């Protein structure tokens, strides 16, 4: 089944759910900041500590840190309402599905650290495990040291070609705080990531804790004016599909470096 009419949207509407987070670390303008590890509503997420990592799913039980999401009794789930504001300025807020994350890196090593990621759950943009539309990001979970290494990840693309590699698209900097999120690019021609084989730092990051995350963007809102909120709904948000097991979380690309609050809400319809 699928929702193909406005009446279907109304019939399948689920409760709107509130989120509210205080962003305490100093940020860098335009550099994405994950809200996964922050307390608030919802509470803080946790991180894996193994190089091979774990896939994440909300089907059996919600994952700590995720925005509430429940599988439909039947049919599909679609985004029908997403609003957010950031009180310290403008920027951009993404709503993303957190598919996999790992940990256990030796942050002082500049050798390739091998990873055998498990098969993704069927939540790429086609609802498959191939990884189309699945991206990678490096998330800092404890402030890193005074260095600015290049991050190189070796991966298999969504067409199942191995040996692909890419680096961080936003330059690293000394001592990024917890929550700093460095998206990893794609090699030319690639549309997503099926699995991860290794991560290499060009130089030691001295100290701290970092994690690699596989995620898929569901939607985003552009906070165009300072402190103004923004909304998408079922008519303006492209009715993005949210597959069973989705683990929604937020990533903010701020226009200011100061601490502030992110608030908003999420609504879905199912049928």
């Amino acid at each position, binding site marked *: 089944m699928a929702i193909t009419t406005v009446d279907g949207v109304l019939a399948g509407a689920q409760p709107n*759910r509130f989120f509210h987070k205080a962003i305490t670390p100093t940020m860098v303008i335009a550099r994405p900041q994950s809200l996964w590890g922050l307390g*608030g509503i919802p509470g803080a997420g946790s991180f894996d500590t193994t190089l091979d990592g774990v896939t994440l799913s909300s089907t059996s039980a919600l994952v700590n840190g995720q925005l509430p999401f429940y599988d439909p009794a039947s049919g599909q789930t679609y985004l029908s309402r997403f609003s957010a504001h950031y009180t310290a300025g403008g920027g951009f807020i993404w709503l993303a599905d957190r598919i996999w994350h790992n940990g256990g890196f030796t942050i002082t090593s500049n050798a390739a650290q091998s990873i055998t990621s498990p098969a993704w759950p069927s939540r790429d943009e086609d609802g498959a495990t191939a990884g189309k539309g699945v991206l990678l990001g490096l998330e800092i979970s404890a402030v890193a040291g005074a260095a600015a290494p290049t991050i190189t990840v070796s991966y298999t693309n969504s067409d199942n070609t191995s040996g692909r590699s890419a680096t961080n698209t936003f330059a690293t900097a000394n001592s990024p705080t917890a929550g700093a999120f460095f998206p990893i690019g794609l090699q030319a021609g690639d549309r997503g990531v099926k699995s991860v084989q290794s991560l290499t730092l060009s130089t030691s990051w001295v100290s701290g804790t970092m994690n690699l995350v596989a995620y898929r963007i569901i939607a985003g809102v552009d906070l165009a004016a300072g402190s103004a909120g*923004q909304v998408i709904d*079922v008519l303006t948000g492209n009715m993005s599909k949210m597959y069973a097991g989705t683990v929604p979380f937020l990533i903010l690309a701020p226009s200011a470096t100061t601490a502030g609050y992110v608030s908003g809400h999420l609504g879905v319809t199912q049928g």
Partner: protein
Amino acid sequence: MSITNRQGVIDGLMPPIPMFRGNGGNNGAGQISSSWASAGQMPAGVGAFSASLNGATLTGPGVSGQIPLNDAASGERTYLARWAHRPRRSDLLVPMAGILIDRIWHNGGIDATSTSAQLITSPTWLARDEDGSTNGKGVLLAVEIESTMGAATPTVTVSYTNSAGTSGRTGTNIFATTSGQVAGAFLPISLQAGDVGVRSVESVTLSASWLSGTMHLVAWRLIAMIQEVSAMQLVALDAVTSNFPRIYDGSVLFTLGVNYSTSGPSGCSGEIQFSQG
């Protein structure tokens, strides 16, 4: 029965209700202010507070301060069909957000000078969580200020039982408290990791004396939220764009406002309309 199509929305439309109300004091950029106890022409009446630690659940219609709403006829349901909201501010310059919520429970009698745990035995919630049950899924907590607090900035810690029935959970104020926090401030309490709502409240503890003033705890649930994209602009939701939230019988609806600057008290005007069927 329930409404599952546009014709049903139209068939069940109730008369629009005008709204014109203040939002209490402004504690700074980003802070949330409650309209509960603010004077305003519509809806009539000023919300009252409980004076006991155990507090009281709230059931409409007829609660002073609530947006007027009668229960649906037997076998029918109520939904939000339209909400038009325009912030009004003394400086007329800065946008804000509006939040429509159901006030499920509130308490009082909290000793603002005590740093001991003040025990609370909240009554069973009404069947108005997001599933229409008493479990508390989607039910959140907040501190609401009735009269100006003293010159201190305590952390407020609440012990609660989550919607899955697990006791001993704790949360704290997400917005930092401010010295001399003014009446109307509404400070949401965080959820412990993994929780999706609150079933009951067991205690409240201040990390330091707040010296003076009157504070309350409120249990509430989000119905809808509007983001204002420019100053003084009226923004409207309808049945489709609001995600058609269901409103359970007995709901006690009122609005919150998010302040984006420190200047001037804020409020809102607009109208709200429900559909029943």
